[in-house]
């Protein structure tokens, strides 16, 4: 059993963007706050902080999750990938390019979460149509309401991937 002591921080080891990180963490700390405040990874945003907006979307053990509905201590022994990790590795290059060229961001606050949700779709539902794209990002709010361009950008990459072409986006 781990951490039965009251009022004690819990030793937690997370494989963060491929590298093991061990810290003592207060149980109340959300994963997204740990990433931002303790690890300086401020790409994952804190929006609504109750699971509605999706700005804090990160990947845990390969699945997208809410960083504000996950305690950092729950990530003990797990792999966590953030927008920084996936961006640096080049995994998001095609979808980032499509977002850029389609103007699929305005203020940009929702963008990291959107990219995480979009990449999840690209990986797991390569045949998705526009309706399925909308369903997949339905948990990510864009308060600039730029959904049309976001759906366009995701659709472009899906189409590229299906035709096996290199990313060549035409506006």
């Amino acid at each position, binding site marked *: *059993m781990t*951490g*039965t002591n009251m009022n004690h921080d819990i030793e937690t080891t997370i494989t963060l963007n491929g590298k093991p990180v061990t810290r003592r963490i207060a*149980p109340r700390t959300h994963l997204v706050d740990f990433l931002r405040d303790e690890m300086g990874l401020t790409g994952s945003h804190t929006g609504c902080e*109750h699971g509605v907006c999706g700005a804090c979307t990160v990947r845990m053990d390969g699945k*997208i999750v809410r960083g504000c509905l996950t305690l950092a201590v*729950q990530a003990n022994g797990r792999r966590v990938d953030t927008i920084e990790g996936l961006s640096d590795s080049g995994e998001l290059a095609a979808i980032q390019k499509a977002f850029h060229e389609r103007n699929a961001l305005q203020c940009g606050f929702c963008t990291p979460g959107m990219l995480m949700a979009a990449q999840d779709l690209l990986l797991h539902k390569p045949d998705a149509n526009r309706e399925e794209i909308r369903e997949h990002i339905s948990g990510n709010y864009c308060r600039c309401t730029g959904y049309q361009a976001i759906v366009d950008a995701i659709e472009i990459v899906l189409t590229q991937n299906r035709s096996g072409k290199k990313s060549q986006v035409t506006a």
Partner: protein
Amino acid sequence: MKAPAFAYAKPASLAEVFTLLQQHGEGAKLLAGGQSLIATLNLRLSAPDILVDITGLPGLSAISFSKDTARIGALVTHRELEHSYEIAQHLPLLAQAVPHVAHIAIRNVGTFGGSIAMADPAAEYPAVCVALDAQFVIAGAKGERRVAAREFFKGMYETALQPGEVLIAGEFKIAAKGYRSAFVELARRHGDYAIVGLAAHANTVDGRYADVRLAFLGAGGEPVLARATAAALEGKAFGPDTIALAQATLARDLDPPADLYSSSATKLHLARVITGRALAALAQ
């Protein structure tokens, strides 16, 4: 907002869970996926002394079948149910309900048992379990007991779970030949909590309804089984007259409380609308 301070434990056995629950009494809360619990903590709607994380317990994460029974472990996630071919085959009502549960990032983590134990009046699974007459398996320090879903939900966020007990599984009779299912829900936005929803299951023989079960969500503190309407439908032929009869009878079963957005009358009207849709779907 941020959650208040609490302690955290992740026991490796049920025995340890029972010890912690006994030690901390009402100050302890069980944590599974946390997709409702952590939101309530963030909103400071509850302030437990300790969260007991049960996701390290063995044996609660399986979907299994034996003869005519399906068993869903408490820690099975919404996403696992959504992707299960066997669930789609044998419990189509549950399979139809899953996509209505929140969004993918939440379905990846949230659990079957969590949804049942939380007993949100607008949640999907409680109504499905009531419609299908499921049983819940509950473990306590003194052993296991089973409670029928129809006895389990006691009101808004209230269940038959006693202090010190843990919900460990749900058991369902698998859908028999001839039975059909329809899950219909109205929400303001996709993935939001339902305004009103309906889990419908019935035998359909020779173009007639039989053994109809209609369980509504968002229509009371707990799932509401529309018994008078089901009785009125028994043996009736598919068609608009039968649907109109069911819609007319519904007021005998439902007196939905108003919520922030919808009056009681609106909810009853919407319940009639989805009853029509569900009965039409069952007839197809």
